[in-house]
């Protein structure tokens, strides 16, 4: 995994964070400068965690695009570009290649996600500097925020593994579009109430509406984690039989 992280650092993937942070940063600056639209949004009943969650919802389309791109580039991109051929013939077992790439991407996403929340937390404080007492935590159930944070994280991981899987058969650009489309379609499937306990990200949205329903949350995560591992096993199996030319 270290060598995959090494490559992620040298490929400067972390710059993608700037893209993700750009919009919340503008929002916080707007609040700080009392710009009309921003002031309206920045009401005192919002806590810092609310703010983080809202920021995530606000930029989720870009967020998912970045995550899917990173995963697609790590696998399908290298398969298409020929670098994976070099890695494959360089003494590493194919199972290890998949696991190393996936674990490096998952770790990178986790760090990205934590940084995103920390950044927004500080942006909230910046936006509320003029208020005497910024509300850091609201009285709402903390489980909601864990649900939102975890829900998005698990969704990112599921998107990553699907990107890896589809990348076995398609070029990078098609993989990116297809996985993004699947995610997009799933977002609208959110409107079907019976699916709310299947997809973790929708679970996160749902939790903001009905607080404290941990049964749904756990069920959503378990389904996703199970799905993740099934796809992983199929992926490794198929990658072993894949002609890399």
């Amino acid at each position: 995994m270290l060598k995959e992280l090494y490559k992620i650092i040298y490929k400067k993937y972390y710059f993608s964070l700037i893209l993700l942070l750009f919009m919340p940063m503008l929002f916080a600056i707007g609040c700080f400068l009392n710009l009309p639209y921003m002031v309206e949004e920045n009401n005192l009943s919002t806590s810092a965690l609310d703010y983080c969650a809202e920021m995530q919802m606000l930029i989720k389309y870009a967020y998912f695009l970045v995550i899917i791109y990173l995963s697609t580039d790590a696998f399908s991109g290298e398969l298409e570009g020929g670098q994976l051929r070099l890695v494959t013939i360089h003494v590493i077992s194919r199972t290890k290649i998949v696991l190393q790439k996936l674990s490096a991407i998952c770790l990178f996403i986790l760090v990205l996600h934590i940084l995103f929340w920390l950044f927004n937390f500080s942006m909230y404080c910046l936006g509320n500097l003029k208020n005497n007492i910024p509300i850091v935590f609201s009285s709402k159930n903390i489980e909601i925020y864990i649900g939102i944070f975890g829900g998005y994280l698990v969704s990112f991981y599921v998107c990553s593994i699907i990107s890896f899987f589809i990348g076995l058969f398609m070029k990078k650009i098609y993989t990116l579009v297809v996985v993004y489309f699947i995610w997009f379609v799933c977002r609208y499937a959110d409107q079907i109430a019976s699916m709310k306990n299947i997809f973790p990200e929708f679970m996160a949205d749902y939790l903001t509406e009905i607080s404290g329903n941990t049964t749904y949350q756990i069920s959503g995560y378990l389904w996703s984690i199970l799905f993740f591992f099934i796809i992983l096993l199929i992926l490794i199996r198929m990658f072993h039989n894949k002609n890399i030319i």
Partner: protein
Amino acid sequence: MKKQKLLEIHNLTQHYGDFIALNNISFSIEKGTIIGLLGKNGAGKTTLMKTILGLLCQYDGEIKFKGKSINHGDPKIMRKISSLVDVRFYEDMSAYENLNYLLMADVKISKSNRRKKIDELLTLVGLENNSSSKVKSFSFGMKQRLALAQVFLHDAELIILDEPFVGLDPVGIEFMKSMLKQIQREKDATIIFSSHQLEEVSDLADEIVAISDGTIKYCGTLQELQNTNKKYNIWFVGKEMKIEIPYNSEILQRTIHEHLKKGIEISKIEVIENALYQLFI
């Protein structure tokens, strides 16, 4: 003393859909020899190399490495095989970073040893002054040198090179040839390389494997090939046609005698020795 067989290929067949790229190929390679793979474009040379390397993993037949059926998923075996087959580097990383990334797979090598080894290799291929330059700024020849450096990252016993001389200037070709001969001499490495440059093949190869339309046309030493493929071309006065006869003085005398009896005069007799070219066409 008979040398150990390093690689044995038995009845290897490889398909691309309905197209048969390799058709029931069998040959073996002894340790420490340099094998030149000859054949036209699309003959099946690269397919053969990729199949040996496990990049094309669905095939019929058997590939044995050191007497055992090859398991492409086993790093212990694959560490003994290195290759230069359509190598693509990470363009945004430097030469050093690319090699370091590949060497990081070997956890037994410490960081300081990795640096030492990479510096040695880059010096060996003449890229010591470009070690921190990004690969995307390299010329084709420099990339080829870097590719050669990655071949020597591990002490491989079998080295597979697909068109190693393509795109190199004469100095680069001489450098590559001397490097390969040195590796063979010092480490007793077995080298399989493909090339369209017949001069390089005859200079470098101990044995030739010629492939045509997915089947083996010839497998043996260059000397044997030259002896068997040597022939006479006989040209006649007033005619544009020629006849080919085997390199045998009795047959030559008989042919000349028969034609003179018929009143056909001979204008030229030439000895054809370019056995490699004959094989190639």
